[in-house]
């Protein structure tokens, strides 16, 4: 399978601080990668490096066969990288529908199709972003990224801070995107067991380095690396 994304020996951070060191991995078309790790190990920095808001010290990032490490965030987005930020950052003064159409690019994902994925948003299409609940904002953040019709979707802790029932709804939507739509994705998540069943591969980060890489199914079958590196024991 042709690689959609190839990250080679990437070291990146903010200002003078190097957060990621020598990170290498690849992602094929339609593949989903789980990025796991404790708090502060560099998961969000990895996402930030892919969207282009960190300082790169070394390494390369190739996307669809082209080097993008020197490109601006808008140029990367225009090439097909969609981002769902950890803080959601919906445009609060724009309506739900405007949030989707302000960044929309041509492709199969239209505002109506996003409303099909998240019917709750359809009901609130004329409400301002600031008037949404946390769960609705997360749905809108995912929908907004989809409206850019990305080739690769980056989801940074998509279930953080959500009520359990909303977590199920958001995970079901993500599963549909990855499994039924075949969208390539990188999903950052602290709670490994939520995301491993719907991803193909997984990497575990520790102190800015990839310390484990395997198929997600293998990690689910043998949780020893999870227990050792994340302290995960729950079932």
């Amino acid at each position, binding site marked *: 399978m042709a690689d959609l994304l190839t990250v080679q020996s990437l070291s990146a951070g903010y200002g003078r601080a190097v957060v990621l060191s020598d990170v290498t991995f690849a992602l094929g078309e339609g593949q989903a990668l789980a990025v796991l790790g404790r708090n502060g190990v560099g998961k969000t920095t990895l996402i930030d490096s892919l*969207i*282009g*808001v960190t300082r790169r010290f070394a390494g390369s990032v190739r996307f669809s066969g082209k080097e993008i490490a020197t490109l*601006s*965030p*808008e140029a990367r*987005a*225009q090439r097909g990288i*969609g*981002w769902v*930020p950890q803080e959601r*950052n919906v*445009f*609060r*003064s*724009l309506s739900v529908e*405007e*949030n989707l*159409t*302000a*960044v*929309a*690019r041509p492709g199969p994902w239209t505002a109506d199709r996003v409303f099909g994925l998240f019917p709750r948003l359809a009901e609130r299409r004329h409400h301002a972003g600031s008037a949404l609940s946390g769960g609705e904002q997360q749905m809108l953040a995912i929908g*907004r*990224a989809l409206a*850019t019709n990305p080739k690769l979707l980056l989801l940074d802790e998509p279930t953080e801070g959500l009520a359990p029932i909303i977590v199920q709804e958001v995970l079901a939507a993500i599963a549909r995107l990855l499994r039924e739509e075949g969208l390539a994705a990188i999903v950052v998540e602290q709670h490994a067991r939520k995301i491993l069943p719907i991803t193909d591969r997984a990497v575990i980060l520790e102190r800015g380095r990839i310390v484990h890489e395997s198929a997600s199914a293998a990690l689910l079958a043998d949780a020893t690396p999870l227990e050792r590196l994340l302290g995960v024991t729950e079932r």
Partner: protein
Amino acid sequence: MPSATLLGQALISGVLAGGMYGLLALGLSLSWGLLRLVNLSHFALAFLAAYLTYEMGTTYHIDPWWSVLVIVPAMFVIGLLQHWVFDRFKVNELASLLITFSFAVILEVAIQLYWTADYRRFETHYSTLSIKVGAFYIPVLELILCLVAGVLAWGTWLWLRKTYVGKALRASAEDAEIAAAYGVDHKKLAYLLSGLGAAYAGVAGTFIALIATLAPAQIWAWLGVVFAVVIIGRLGNPLGALFAGMLIGASESIAMAVLSPAWAPVVSFSVLIVLLLWDPDWS
């Protein structure tokens, strides 16, 4: 107490005069609200356009309705050049105020050097035309100004709400970094908006040439009240700017009729102070 006719006439005149406030406020409100650039040179650009209209009309006998077709695109280009400076030197909100104030002073001096400090009046055969409706007189030029201001404000409002570019601009104004991460090219949009704001100054300038007496120092005459209008109408809201302009124009005119002309400037700032005390986050 003045008669009902006088009050009615004051109200009409005020609303029509407020159209000029709204038209001048339009470009300022857009650049301040959507680009976070406080462009004081907007007034100087409007007066440059007014003097150009005057020059083309008196020296070359070109009717203002034709000269506007040259002046407005020229102002658009000046807006682009001005934004190149903002962009090149990464000018922030406060610095933009100081830089554009300096630019306005330089432009005032340049106007004075070329056209002198003498008062100039561009007389046309329609300068004093008015329509009589019942007991009231409606000056035609001011009425056209209001209609043009209304069309521009309404059109800009629709553009910001219904088009991709407009919505992207609003998203960018709220959070430029996040908008960029979704592929919005804020830089290009900012150039477009700067050009548009300057073009609106060009339209305002054409009407200033037709309605007002020109003198370089007059650049500053509307600064205070238009600033108040921009804030009252909410930053970045074109319809708000127009309605606030008409509200302030009407209030000033009524104050002049009921109290005395000296009270007019008090009105706009009183409204502004009350509004900001009532809701500090109003703008």
